[in-house]
């Protein structure tokens, strides 16, 4: 815990105003990071030993009464220090751009594609931000709270099904 606090203090010193909120969620530390600082904070955290990006989760906070509608949650783990850390970035509905972490971790590639597919986040700098679980003709984003749970969509097209190998 002390190690984690030291890392967080260093981030606070280096990026003033980057950490909007520090919360304790059932024993886990959750930092809310300003969207404009998220990439810099991720770079510094990776240098500080958080070498494993476990997961990126999108959240549609439509019914939670929070400041912004969407959130992106990064789950980080430090293999050398056995620490967990969660970062949260608030993303407004009318501007869903945020920087991609694919230059830091390979695991961000598919994780960000899934978050895009399910919620519509635009990860700037991602090499191939395409749908990953839903099909190409899918309209909308399935995990948004205003997408009806029973609404299915058929894949009918016979258009070019050859993936783009150069940008994949």
């Amino acid at each position, binding site marked *: 815990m002390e190690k984690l606090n030291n890392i967080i203090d260093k981030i606070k010193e280096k990026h003033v105003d980057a950490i909007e909120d520090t919360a304790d969620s059932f*024993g*886990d530390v959750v930092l809310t990071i300003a969207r404009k600082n998220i990439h810099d904070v991720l770079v510094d955290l990776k240098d500080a030993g958080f*070498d494993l990006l476990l997961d990126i989760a999108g959240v549609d906070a439509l019914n939670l009464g929070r400041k912004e509608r969407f959130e992106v949650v990064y789950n980080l783990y430090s293999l050398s220090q056995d620490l967990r850390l969660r970062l949260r970035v608030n993303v407004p509905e009318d501007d869903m751009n945020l920087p991609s972490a694919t230059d830091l971790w*390979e*695991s961000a590639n*598919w994780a960000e594609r899934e978050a895009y597919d399910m919620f519509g986040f635009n990860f700037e700098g991602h090499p191939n931000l395409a749908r990953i679980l*839903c099909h190409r003709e899918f309209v909308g984003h399935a995990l948004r709270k205003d997408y009806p749970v029973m609404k299915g969509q058929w894949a009918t097209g016979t258009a070019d099904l050859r993936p783009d190998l150069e940008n994949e």
Partner: protein
Amino acid sequence: MDQENLDNPTSADKDPTITSEIEIADETSLEDLDTEPMYINIGPTHPATHGTFRVFCRLDGEKIDRAAVEIGYLHRGFEKMVESKNYAQVIPYTDRLNYCSALSNNVGYTKAMERMLGVTITPRTEIIRVIICEVQRIMDHLICVCANLVDVGALTNFWYFFNAREKLNDVLEALTGARLTYSYVRIGGLAWDLPEGFEENVRAALSLVPKAIKDVTGLVKKNRIFIDRTRDVGVMTPEDAVSFGFTGPCLRASGVNHDLRKKHPYYHYDEFDFDVPLGENGDCYDRIFVRIEEMHQSLRIIEQALKILPGGPINIDDKNIVLPEKDNVHSSMEALINHFKLIIEGIQPPPGEIYDATETPNGELGFYIISDGSGHPYRIKVRPPCFYLMNGLKHLIEGHMVADIVAILAGLNIIAGELDR
């Protein structure tokens, strides 16, 4: 003639009338050979993909030049579906994530929920969960390793491992009533206690596992064909493995010592005596033998757990989480009301969010659960270990032969159920 002479025939071996023509033909054909890339699909339905997904390759000869991996063919919308269920109803859906080790998924989800609710399960349930998780680890590794061996052409081993797996399946069938989707674990406990004779049955079934492993390793460990197909095939360096988010046996095969059972012990894993096997090269061979060694370690854990299995209740005493005994529901007004309220309203954890992970056979299975205080989960995000293993597949197969795809793919143990959710 031995191999060396075949490659470098001496003048005495040559037939002077034909060899010169062949040499000339070879030189010209290589220079003027008209080559163009060939595009092939492996999948979406292919016996060697162990699930439905597609690998699209551009081939240069028989070498994979570029590849694109496409998933989603088994996407059911797990995360969307569970938002309209209550917390207890999610458990059967978790069975269908990694269907080779459904009980590990049950435990992963219920452990996250119990931490969120702030309850501690009974000592007996903790040890039973350790036993069923380790039995499932053995079963998952058996199916992964034998399928991997079949894919590289060693068919006999499939039956050696499936004999043992079948007996373990019988034990779990006697325990849970199902053979694939068990749904045995409940939030705050278990569906019911162990049946009579469980300990003897599980010991008898597990006694077949070392023999099966011995038979299989005896056939493959020093087998030239097997070594050629798996050694230095699909090598993942430790740095790449971490960058791709590998966890579990695939990460340990690359030599990174990370096991949640040791690093963040739950259910008294720190009190059990077991080792974490590590690989050296991170190739297919290491991934297979790390799994085989993990089975030995799981056997040790189960043996210790059976020795210390305590008595006592299996469910916690909390009427807001666990359903009352059926006899009481029929005879007591209070129990009937509790039963009714729990069925209609469901378990209501406090508002907030939690990420909790367990070490499942494939790696770190995480559940990120957001509660808004109602009886339905606001959002459940699964962190399936397969998803990140599959992300690394493209990196692993590019530059290899077509035939290596199946060897690499099976070694990662891709389960489409949890990959696509």
